[in-house]
């Protein structure tokens, strides 16, 4: 068996970890906040403990271990935190900010720290102290008439899922791919996307509370209206719309977030379009676009590449043990054996039987005209790849895509590249060709998915590598840099990036954009204590 580990191996690994825990961070200068000596850091830790309690400051090797784990390459130790502090409420966040301002302590806020493919909880530069907001984990309000929710940072999608079930509320959530362990706020602030008609998470966000670096508490939109009750109902408020500047940003610390939830439909019917050839992605894209624009396909459509799908449930050695990247014919053979094509497109219909009966033949005929098979539960029920997206398109709980992190073996390793493009067949064809060329040159398998919104699409490329092999990690890093640069030359920039490439991607958005961000940062956080380096903003 290639996938498991033996009991003897587990015990050996556990022993090695216990040994690591005996070390002290004080001996590792690279972990310390920049320009801060050890005595000052020790004083900071004492002050933070006075705010949150002894148990909720982590400043030694053993207790900070959890905050260092990520799947991205980090050969030079550039994303190692100095420690972590976990407040329980807004008042403690304010008190921590006061300490951070006084000592110039950089804080890297996280909600659950499960930013898969982008660095998990790790900061943009070493020495930052993680501001772990997971203890703030309350669902503060759930309006069952409006279908709105107000959550704190630590609330996971699993928690909301359970809350809806426990209270028999007629709503669905929309999840990112690793929903059970991920924060709704965290994913929304990173502008993540999902799979139901409410798949554009930031679009469905309504109102937030932000603590600024000076301790000011700002409620956006309608949130500051005296005796107001419209905070989660109306997004725009009055005057400049501010919510956007607190997403993918380091301008403040978001402590409450409002979201809209999708009414649970009476009937849900998932579909899979199976396309056999790599080049079919262009025709599929052009078929999806008009139906997404007129909302006849209401949900976030995923065009899943066969290798992306198979990497969930297999390791690379299960498919191929030869030299070089996995040949196309090998991927095709394994795809056929699993009843999937080279591209498998997932969409769904939601409503009543009558509504779905009216829509289904229109869509089926359109996709069939591309030469694809249009399949339903009747043909694909029980197939794990169909079941995976069927779960996601109804906001269900799954962690199956965690599987791709261990594609190369037990060390794990995956870093994401997500360029956006107009939803046109010429774009998907071009991006697929360019990504395949670059990744194959560096010896990596191209495992893609396209998430199609209305007029745009996100190309999700997980660069899977062996983090246990430094040379492989180095190649992954160089391959990622080449992809960002060469896609950028074609005008294709990423919508989000790993902590290791935030500055590189920010450069592609131009000097004026960076300058404006820098001015806002200087105005709101003059000591640059909140997440320096986030999205390339110092």
């Amino acid at each position, binding site marked *: 068996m290639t*996938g*498991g580990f033996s*009991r003897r191996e*587990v*015990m050996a*690994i*556990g022993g090695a970890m*216990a040994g690591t825990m005996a070390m002290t961070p004080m001996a590792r200068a690279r972990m310390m906040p920049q320009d801060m000596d050890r005595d000052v850091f020790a004083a900071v830790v004492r002050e933070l403990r006075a705010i949150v309690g002894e*148990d*909720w400051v982590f400043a030694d090797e053993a*207790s900070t271990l*959890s*905050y*260092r*784990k990520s799947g991205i390459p980090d050969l030079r130790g550039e994303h190692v935190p100095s420690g*972590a502090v*976990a407040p*329980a409420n807004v008042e403690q966040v304010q008190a921590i900010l006061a300490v951070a301002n006084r000592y110039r302590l950089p804080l890297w806020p996280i909600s*659950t720290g*499960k930013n*898969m493919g982008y660095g998990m909880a790790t900061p943009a530069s070493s020495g930052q102290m993680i501001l*772990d907001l*997971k*203890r703030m*984990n*309350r*669902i*503060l*309000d*759930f*309006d*069952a*008439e409006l*279908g709105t929710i107000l959550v704190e940072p*630590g609330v996971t999608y699993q928690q909301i899922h*359970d*809350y809806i079930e426990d209270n028999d*509320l*007629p709503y669905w959530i929309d999840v990112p791919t690793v929903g*059970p*362990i991920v924060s709704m706020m965290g994913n929304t602030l990173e502008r993540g996307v999902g799979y139901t008609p*409410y798949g554009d998470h930031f679009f469905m966000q309504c109102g937030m509370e932000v603590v600024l670096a000076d301790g000011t508490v700002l409620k956006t939109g309608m949130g500051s209206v005296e005796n107001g009750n419209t905070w989660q109902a109306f997004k725009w408020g009055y005057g400049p719309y501010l919510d956007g500047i607190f997403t993918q940003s380091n301008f403040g610390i978001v402590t409450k977030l409002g979201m*809209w939830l999708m009414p*649970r*439909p*009476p009937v849900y019917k998932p579909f899979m379009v199976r396309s056999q050839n790599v080049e079919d992605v262009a025709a599929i894209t052009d078929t999806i676009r008009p139906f997404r624009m007129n909302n006849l396909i209401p949900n976030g459509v995923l065009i899943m590449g066969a290798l992306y799908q198979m990497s*969930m*449930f297999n390791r690379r050695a299960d498919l191929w043990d030869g030299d070089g990247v996995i040949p196309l014919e090998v991927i095709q053979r394994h795809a056929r054996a699993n009843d999937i094509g080279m591209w498998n497109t997932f969409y769904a219909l939601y*409503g*009543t039987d009558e*509504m779905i009966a009216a829509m289904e033949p229109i869509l089926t005929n359109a996709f069939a005209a591309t030469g694809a098979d249009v399949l339903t539960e009747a043909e694909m029920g029980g197939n794990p790849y169909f079941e995976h997206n069927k779960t996601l398109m109804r906001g269900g*709980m799954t*962690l*199956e895509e*965690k*599987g791709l992190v261990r594609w190369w073996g*037990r*060390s*794990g*390793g995956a870093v994401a590249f997500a360029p956006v493009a107009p939803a046109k067949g010429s774009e998907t064809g071009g991006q697929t060709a360019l990504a395949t060329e670059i990744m194959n040159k560096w010896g990596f398998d191209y495992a893609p998915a396209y998430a199609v919104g209305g007029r745009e699409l996100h190309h999700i490329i997980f660069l899977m590598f062996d983090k246990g092999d430094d040379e492989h990690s180095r190649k992954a890093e160089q391959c990622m840099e080449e992809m960002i640069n060469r896609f950028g030359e074609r005008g294709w920039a990423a919508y989000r990036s790993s902590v290791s490439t935030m500055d590189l991607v920010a450069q592609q958005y131009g000097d004026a954009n960076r300058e404006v961000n820098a001015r806002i940062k200087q105005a709101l956080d003059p000591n640059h204590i909140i997440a320096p380096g986030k999205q390339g903003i110092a």
Partner: protein
Amino acid sequence: MQAGKRRWVALALGLAVVAGGGLAVGLSASASAQATYEIEPREPAYLYARTCGYCHGHNIAPIIRGRSLPPAVIQSIVRSGMGAMPAFKPTEITDTELEALSAWISQSEADPEEHGQ
């Protein structure tokens, strides 16, 4: 058409018009807010089902039940995140919860429903 269906259609039509707005219709009053920061320790089986069990015994990660794995080793792996596994912090699974969870996993019987690597 049933009342429930009519309500959903109204909401769906509202969505088509205002792209995500939805119409307010007469459902019951708001559910109450959740209460607490400092939650009571959650039971091991509850935690396993909502975290570990999505991967372990589900084709993604090795089966760990019924193997008498030492609790100390389980705790160490949970905190550090072995290989592809994410690390889980004390703010996600408290030390008290992890102690009970690791003992439960160590002592648990193999689950015939679990499968895979």
